[in-house]
């Protein structure tokens, strides 16, 4: 029932985006696509947060996804956005699978700082890497879809629709995962790990799985952001980028798998408006916004949409 409602809402949003796209200005399409990309990363953070883990380095996988997309263009001449997102997810998931053996052993501040350290290692490597453009970064090939290159007027809309479709699919899969016994262990792990082990489940395995799924989502997000912006640089792995994702996740709340996308959209709007009004103090506006949410809506913006327990 819950799943059906989530599916319905997502379906409506998807149709609305596809339908309204041609009517929207270019900047709105751009903002919406970036919101989808960052929403995917925040969705990964949500998975971990439900198990009580805060990753301060999710930008690692966001950046990996982006550089995977960039490398596909630079070394293999591939600009297909779906392939970029798929490759971004696979590369991120693979790296997370390897690093997960280490990360799944840590909790709390150690998990957070270790993930942050790993993202800064990637940042350091990219800055030193001439082949990948060092601090200047690299340009992404013009986006194509199934071998077709959309014209200048429609490309933003096409990227948005492709991003929405992929995000829709990913969110459905995450929703399904949350309904499996392994997915449902999140709250139990957060509350009492010893009891989880004594029920016959492996906490480490469950956390490892969440870590890999979160990385795959972030990888997709990074690839989508890369093809949307057309340029990537090592700052995508910098710790402030990770902070942005935590900001979005806290802003949105963790009650629903749709919340991260809403959070990312609102983050984008606040950011844009604040920057427009006062370019030098936009961080202050963002900070105040987050402060208001934490004080008045401790469960995030999603709690505005009914206080029932969601998926």
């Amino acid at each position, binding site marked *: 029932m819950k799943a059906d409602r989530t599916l319905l809402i997502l379906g409506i949003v998807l149709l609305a985006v596809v339908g309204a796209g041609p009517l929207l200005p270019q900047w709105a399409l751009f903002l919406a696509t970036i919101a989808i990309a960052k929403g995917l990363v925040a969705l990964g953070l949500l998975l971990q947060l439900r198990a009580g883990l805060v990753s301060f380095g999710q930008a690692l996988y966001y950046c990996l996804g982006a550089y995977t997309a960039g490398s596909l263009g630079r070394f293999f001449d591939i600009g297909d956005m779906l392939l970029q997102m798929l490759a971004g997810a696979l590369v991120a998931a693979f790296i997370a699978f390897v690093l997960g053996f280490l990360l799944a052993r840590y909790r709390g501040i150690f998990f957070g700082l270790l993930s942050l350290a790993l993202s800064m290692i990637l940042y350091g490597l990219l800055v030193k890497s001439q082949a990948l453009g060092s601090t200047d970064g690299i340009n992404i090939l013009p986006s194509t879809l199934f071998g077709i290159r959309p014209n200048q007027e429609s490309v933003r809309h096409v990227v948005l629709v492709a991003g929405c479709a992929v995000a829709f699919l990913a969110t459905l899969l995450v929703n*399904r*995962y949350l309904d*499996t*016994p*392994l997915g*449902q*262990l999140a*709250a*139990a792990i*957060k*509350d*009492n790990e*010893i*009891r*989880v*082990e*004594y*029920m*016959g*489940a*492996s906490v480490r395995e469950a956390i490892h799985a969440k870590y890999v799924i979160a990385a795959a989502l972030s990888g997709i997000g990074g690839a989508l952001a890369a093809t949307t912006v057309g340029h990537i640089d090592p700052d995508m792995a910098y710790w402030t980028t990770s902070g942005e994702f935590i900001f979005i996740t806290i802003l949105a709340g963790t009650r629903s798998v749709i919340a991260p996308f809403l959070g990312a959209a609102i983050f984008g709007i606040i950011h844009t408006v604040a920057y427009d009004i006062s370019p030098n103090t936009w961080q202050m506006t963002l900070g105040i916004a987050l402060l208001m949410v934490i004080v008045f809506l401790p469960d995030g913006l999603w709690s505005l949409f009914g206080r029932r327990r969601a998926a």
Partner: protein
Amino acid sequence: MALVLEARGLNKRFGAVTAATNVSAAIEQNSVVGLIGTNGAGKTTFINMITGYIKPDSGSIHYQGRDITALPPREVTRIGICRSFQIPQLYSSLSVYEHMMVGLGVVLRNAGLAGFFTRGRPNVPGHGAPAAAVAERILVRFGLTDYRDRNAQVLPGGVRKLLDIALTMVAKPAILLLDEPTSGVSAEEKFGMMEMVMAAVKAEGATVLFVEHDMEVVSRFAGRVLAFYDGRIIADAAPEIALVDPEVKRYVVGGALRRMDEREGRPNA
């Protein structure tokens, strides 16, 4: 009767503290064994070693002939040895019903019956019914239906205790280790609670070891007593024999028996 569980010469030291010295015990199938001893005598250490939470320095533990000494708690649980806790180990943000469902989910998953691609509602192994029905059945058996949708955080102490024990039943244990099932429960409610727990456990056909400080409860429910003192088992016999053993009276039940006499208005023996 057939042996299900056997501890052979378990030794465990925590620094200068000796928690187990040459502890050996053979447990028969379907028996009910009471573990007694003062605080720090080694009862919980014994349970922790059997369930794999603590590894003995030497000695071994065998379950149905298999050496399980090195297994971690989750593996021990999977093969059918479950435990409850002296201080209930619950999930504070989950409701009573959700506790059951999460536990049953783990059982289903371990049996390969629930995963990302599974559809429908398979029967839980050992229970012969889908998870929701099994959950309701366990809640009824433990008198928890009135608390079904309450969060564990707000449950009264006695109910927390019951939920802690009820949660062990999802895995259909062959051996159940209850660590002080009646601690924190009022004297009047102790017997009612033990009756309920033992009825539920017997219905599931489990062998039971329980830690208990109340000797009345022990003599009523246990068919056999293991008395611990200073990390050793000083008596292993039926309650009517063990509880009058001079060493046990001196080191373990002396205080308890006196208190019992006082409560019943009898002069001290």
